[in-house]
Each structure stands twice: as C-alpha cells, then as structure tokens.
C-alpha cells in the first residue's frame, strides 16, 4: 500500500476562537480577501461524460494563525489558510450537482495538513490515484482530464476537527461533496514530520 496520508492524532486541536475566525473568513470571502491558490475551470471526462470540477479557493489565515501554528505544529509551514469547496455555475457541463473535485496535484505545496471544520455530509472522502505507466509522485499542478484509466490506490474519510497530513504530489480527488466542505490548511514544501520522507 502506498503511503498517501496519516491521521495526526498527536497534534493539538485548533483553539475554538481560531476555528471561529476561519469560518468567519470563509463567510466573508469575496470581500477583498485574496486567494492563496489559483482557481481555474477544469473540464473532466468521467464515465464518458464531461464535468466541470468543483474548486477549492483558499484564503489566508496567516496573520492570525502564524504564532499558534509555529508554536504547536511546526515552524516549517509555507502557508496557512482556510478553503471551501465551490461549484462553478455552467449549465453546459453541469446538468446536476457536481459532487467531486477531480484528481490533481497541488500547485502551491508538496504536503498539507488539513483540519475539516464544517461539512454538509460526513461521508465525503479524499481518494488517491495513480496514472498507469506514470510515477506515483507528480509535478505540481498535474491535472489529468481523462479519469477513467486512473487507478485508485487509497482513500480517507477525514474526521472533523482532526489533523490529517497528506502527500499532495500524489494525484488526489475529493469525492461525494454534497454541499459544504470547509477546512483549515497548513501547507509545506518539505516534510518536517518525517512521515513521508526517509531519514
């Protein structure tokens, strides 16, 4: 089994006031808070049908979380933010509700700690994929558009209010998002926890 993620139960819970601040940041998005990541429309083919993937804009929490993350998680972070899952309004592709964010590697990081703080349904999951004939670890921002030949190698249903650490250079998708999914993200370019990298 490829090592794709680890549930980091030894890391402390995020204090309630910071969780509230993260939820507030998401609620006020669009009022001038810049994205930490880029959002682009991704048209994907799955089961012979075209879909417009969900997207996950992320907004900075660094001014508020900097000290807490540095003291309680790691000082090696590259960004701290809160992300929320959205759908694009495009009737050409989306004849119903799109419930997945297609397989991709991340653009801005190699590893991420996720801490889900709000979700519409508890059976949302993150799936990890490998493209036959290609390496497990892919360059940043790899986005396959034909999905039917990908092989699922693992999946995790992330528990709420728990840090889950995963390797974002492995293709991953978010599945079964029936509505809301909000998470605090701490991004890393290195692996300060020594979970994925041999040492």
């Amino acid at each position: 089994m490829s090592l794709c993620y680890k549930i980091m139960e030894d890391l402390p819970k995020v204090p309630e006031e910071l969780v509230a601040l993260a939820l507030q940041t998401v609620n006020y998005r669009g009022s001038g808070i810049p994205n930490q990541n880029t959002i682009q429309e991704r048209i994907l083919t799955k089961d012979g049908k075209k879909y417009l993937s969900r997207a996950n804009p992320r907004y900075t929490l660094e001014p508020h979380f900097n000290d807490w993350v540095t003291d309680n998680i790691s000082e090696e972070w590259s960004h701290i933010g809160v992300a929320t899952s959205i759908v694009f309004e495009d009737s050409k592709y989306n004849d119903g509700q799109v419930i997945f964010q297609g397989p991709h590697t991340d653009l801005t990081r190699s590893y991420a700690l996720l801490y889900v703080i709000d979700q519409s349904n508890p059976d949302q999951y993150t799936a990890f994929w490998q493209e036959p004939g290609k390496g497990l670890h892919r360059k940043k921002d790899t986005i396959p558009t034909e999905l039917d030949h990908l092989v699922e190698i693992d999946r995790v249903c992330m528990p709420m209010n728990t840090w889950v650490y995963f390797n974002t250079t492995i293709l991953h998708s978010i599945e079964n998002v029936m509505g809301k999914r909000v998470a605090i993200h701490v991004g890393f370019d290195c692996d300060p926890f020594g979970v994925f990298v041999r040492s």
Partner: protein
Amino acid sequence: MTLCYKIMDHLPNVPDEYVHLALTTVNDTIKQHKTITDDYQDQPVSMINTIQERVFVRNGQEIVSRYNPRYTLEPYMNAWVNDNISREWSQIGVATSVVMDQDKNSEMPSHCFHTDVTRSYVLFYLLESSNSDQDTVFWREPGKSLHKKRGTVPRETDHFVELDRICIPKHTWIYFDASILHSVENIQGLRTAIQISFDCDPLGVFVKG
C-alpha cells in the same frame, strides 16, 4: 545515517552537445561580470533563481557567502530530460559559483548553509571544477527538524551538526534532498553544473512509495 543524497550512476550521461551548450551559456552570461549586480537579471538567458547577499558567522567571523546564479536550459534540454530522466521536473538550468564581490571576497571558498528556494530535490551534474576536493556538506541544527522550509538561511552556524558530505564526481548525476540544510565547501574558483529541479520525488529515492 540520514539519507541526504544518492549517486545516480544508472542515469545516462548528458550528451556532449548539451554540455557544450551549458558551458557556453555560462561563459556568455556570467563570466563576463566581475561582481553580482542587478545586471545579472537583465541577461538574455533567463535566470531561474534569485540572488541576494547572505552573510553568515563561522568561527565568530562574519562571512559573505558565495552565490550560484542559475540560467535556464529548458528550451534546449526539455525533450532529452523528458525522455531520459523524468517528465516531472520543474526547472532545468546551468549554475556556476561566483563570489559576491571579487575584490573584497575573492578568497571565500564557501557557499553557506541553506535550503533551496525553488525546489525540494535536485539532480546535479558537475561539468567543471577548479579543484577536485570541493565538498557538498549536509547539516542539522540541534533540536530542529531535519527538513526545513524553502529559503532557510541560518546566520549562526557553529553549533550545527554535520550529517554527511560528498565530493561530487564530474559527469555523474547526484540526486539530493534540497530541503536538508547544505553548504558547498572549498571552492577555490570554478564550479559549474547542470541542475534539474523537482518539487516532488519522481525517482523514489527520498519519499516512501
């Protein structure tokens, strides 16, 4: 022993035409300058890393680090690297070691402790060196994690612990983890290398599969 690097002697040698092109790129763009100044940024060949003054303290003395400006080879080597090394690269370039100010700092033999700004892993292929006993040395700061964020440049380094070192042979691919603090020591003059950068570990050396 901490895994800091691997000699990748199963990877193919770079064809002579690209070696020549890399050396020409360096000669045409870098060696004509005596000092690192803003005009490095204005060269016709794109520079793919940033240069800033780094001062560190060794044995109680302030020292200005050497620098390693790197210029793109992507338009020329793209296809060869894709076919012979990996498709997952983020940069392909040639870098050469220079001093910040040739008049004041000409004897500085060290490229000080750092993690790289633009990559997590790098394949390094040494083309030229003034002396054959230049060492790449890997370090850890006691009490801190082995893997550090990008662009980490500690100023006080006398308490750091050496983990490993390698005298990189010429015309051989060496793969190393650029998120471990490293320095380059005993550069008496020339040091020029082709470098292929990665944000992931497609060769499966450092990251568990």
